[in-house]
C-alpha cells in the first residue's frame, strides 16, 4: 500500500511541476511574441520618425511656422569686371605728388604721366580729372 501512496504522491507532484513549467513556457512565448511585436512597432515608428524629420520637410516647416529664412548671398561683380575695382593701396593717391604734373581738366593734350601698370589708368584719369 505504501508503494501505491508514494506513486500517487509522485504523480501529483509531477502534475504540479509540469503545470508550472507549462505556465512558464506560455508566459515566455507570450513575452517573446510581444517583444517581437513591439520591435516591429519600433521599426515602423523609426521609419516614420525619419520621414517626419526629413530635412527637406523640416526646412519648409521652419520657414512656414518659425519665420526662419535662409541667408541671401548677393553675387559680387563679375570677376572679369572686378579688375577696375583695384585694392585700395593700388588706387592713385588723392594728393597729387609734387613730381607728377597735375593734369588740368580742360587741357586733354597736356602731358599724361605714363603708368605702365596699364589697366589702372582709366581710374587715375578720372580721379585726377575731377580735381
Amino acid at each position: 500500500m505504501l508503494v501505491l501512496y508514494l506513486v500517487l504522491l509522485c504523480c501529483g507532484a509531477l502534475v504540479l511541476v509540469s503545470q508550472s513549467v507549462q505556465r512558464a513556457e506560455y508566459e515566455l512565448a507570450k513575452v517573446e511574441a510581444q517583444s517581437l511585436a513591439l520591435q516591429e512597432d519600433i521599426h515602423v515608428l523609426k521609419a516614420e520618425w525619419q520621414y517626419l524629420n526629413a530635412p527637406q520637410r523640416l526646412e519648409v516647416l521652419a520657414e512656414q511656422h518659425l519665420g526662419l529664412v535662409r541667408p541671401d548671398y548677393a553675387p559680387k561683380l563679375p570677376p572679369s569686371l572686378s579688375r577696375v575695382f583695384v585694392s585700395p593701396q593700388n588706387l592713385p593717391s588723392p594728393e597729387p605728388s609734387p613730381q607728377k604734373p597735375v593734369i588740368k581738366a580742360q587741357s586733354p593734350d597736356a602731358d599724361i604721366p605714363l603708368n605702365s601698370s596699364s589697366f589702372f589708368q582709366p581710374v587715375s584719369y578720372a580721379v585726377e580729372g575731377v580735381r
Partner: protein
Amino acid sequence: MAWQTLPISPVIRIEGEKSAAFNLARGRLVMLSAFFILGYVLIAIRVADLSLVQGQFSHLFGVEQLAGFDSYAPSTSAGAALRRGDILDRNGEVIATSLGMVSLYADPKLISDPDGAARALAGVFPDQSYAELHAKLSAEGRFVWLERNILPEQQQAVLAIGEPGLGFEGEDRRIYPQGSLFSHLLGYTNVDGYGLGGLEAGLHEKLASGESVALTLDLRLQHILRREIAMVMDEFSAKAGAGVIMNAKTGAVLAGVSLPDYDPHHVDKAENEQKFNRLTLGVFEMGSIFKIFSTALALESGNANINSTYDAREGIKIGRYEINDYHAEDRVMSLPEVFMHSSNIGTVLMIRDLGGQALKDFYNDLGLLTPLYDLGISEIGRPLSPQRWGEIETATISYGQGIATSPLQVAAAVASIVNDGKVVRPHLVPQETSQKHDLAVISPETSSVMRRLMRLTVTDGTGGNADVPGYMVGGKTGTADKPSARGGYDRSRRISSFVGAFPIDDPDYVVLVMVDEPKGIKKSYGYATAGWVAAPAAARIVSSMASVLGLPPQNMNVAGAADLDYAAPLRQYIAAEDDKGAR
C-alpha cells in the same frame, strides 16, 4: 472427486521442482499489470489536466490559450530574422529600411466565383481593371500575385469579400524615408528586395544577411548640397548638376548629389536622364579645375616657382591649333596671376617643358586616369584620356580639356593636393582598417603653396563669389565648353564648376559643384561662367555646412587677423611686382 478433497487456499502453492518457475511467472504478471495500471493512471491524469485544469479552470492559473500566441506573432515572423538590413548615415539616421507589408495573391483553383471576386477586387484596387483581374483569377496554375504591398484598409476590404481562393503573404518593402535625397548613391531594390543599383546592389550580400550598414554620408549635408545644386540649376535653367562634399583628410564622401534624380520607390517611372548618375558614372571635361593639378606638378617638379613669369600676350600655336585665354589679361603674368586669372596660355607654358609623360604619371597618381571601382557601387565611369599624350594633347589636358573624368574623382584629387599631397581615396562605407595611403604626390611645401594659390583665387581671382567671411574658402573655378556633336567644342554649351576646400590653411572639407549647361541671367550680367554659377552655390553650401556642423567662424575684425589672411604673402608679392613694373 479427488480434487474436492484438496485443501482450498487463497494461494495455490505448488511445491516441488515446478514452484520456482511458477513464482517467476506470477512476479512478471504483477509487474506487467502494475505497468499498465500506472500507464492508465498517467493517461487519466493527463486527460484531467487537459480537459479540466487547462480547459475549465485555466482562468484560475491565468494561463493563455496556445491559440492566443498567433495574435502576437508579427506577420513576417518567419522572415523577421532575414529582414534586409537598414542603411544608416554617419550619425545613425535611417536612410533606407524595410517595412513589413502584406501582398495579395490568388489560388485560381480555389476561386469559387471569378466574376464576383474580380468585380469586388476592382472596387478595392482602382488601378486594376475588372478584365485584368478576371483573367488572373481564372488562369491556370495555383498561384498568381494580384497586388503587392497593400494597405491595411485594402486588406480588410479583401477579407470582407470572403473568397476562399484569395490569400495574403507578408512581405518586406524597401522604404527610403527621405525620398529621392540619396537616390543615386543608395540605388534601389526590386519588389523582391534584390538590390539593383547603387549601394543597394553593392552591399546586397551584407544587407540580405540582415546586417545594417552605416555609411560615411551625412543626411544634413546631403540635404544642403542637393538643395543648393537644385537651386542654382533652377536659377540658371541648367540641364543637370552634380556635387560632392568630401572629408579632405580621409576621402570619406559626406554628401554626393546628381540631379535630376528619381524617386527610389517608383523607379519604373523615372526617365533614363533621371537615372544617370553624373557624380560617379558620368565623365566630363572639367576645364580649369585641372590647373590645380598642372600647377602643382609644375611647382613640385621645380620647373616653376611663384616668381616664374609667363607671357600671355599671344596665343600659343601648336600645329593647326591656337590656345587662347578666356579671361584674357594680355600681359606677362607671374605664376600666382596665371592661376588666379585662370590663364590657359600661362598654364600651357608652365607644363610645356615637362612633357606629356610626366603629366600623365602625375594624373595617374592622383587617380584621375583609373575608374573608382573600389567605391562600392557599380555606376562607375571610366575616365577618357587620349592614347598618346602628344604636344597638343598635353597642352589642352593641362587646362582640363581633352580629358574627361567623373566629378568625384576630381574632388578626390583636389583633396589629395590640399591634404599635404597625401593621396586620399573616396569611399562611401567607412574603411575598417584605416587605409593610410602613404603615397604622397606632392610635398607639404608645394601643397601649402597650392592652398595659398587657391585662397588667392577666391580673394582676388575668378572665384570671388565663393568667399564666405570667416571660413577661408580656397578654390578654383572651371568653365569648360562641351564637345559639340559636329566635333570640336560648343561655346554656348558649358560645364561650369567650382571646387573649394576650407578652412584653406588646413582643409577639413572639399566641396565640388558642377552645373551642366547653365544659361546667363540678368543677375549674373549674362554670365554663365563658373565664377557666377558654381562659385556662389559653393559659398552657400559652405555657409550652411558651417551652421549645421557648428564650425565657428574666424573673426577677421580683430587685431592680428591679417595674419590669418592666407593669401596675403602672394597678394603682397603681386603688388610688389606691379610696383616694379610701374617704375
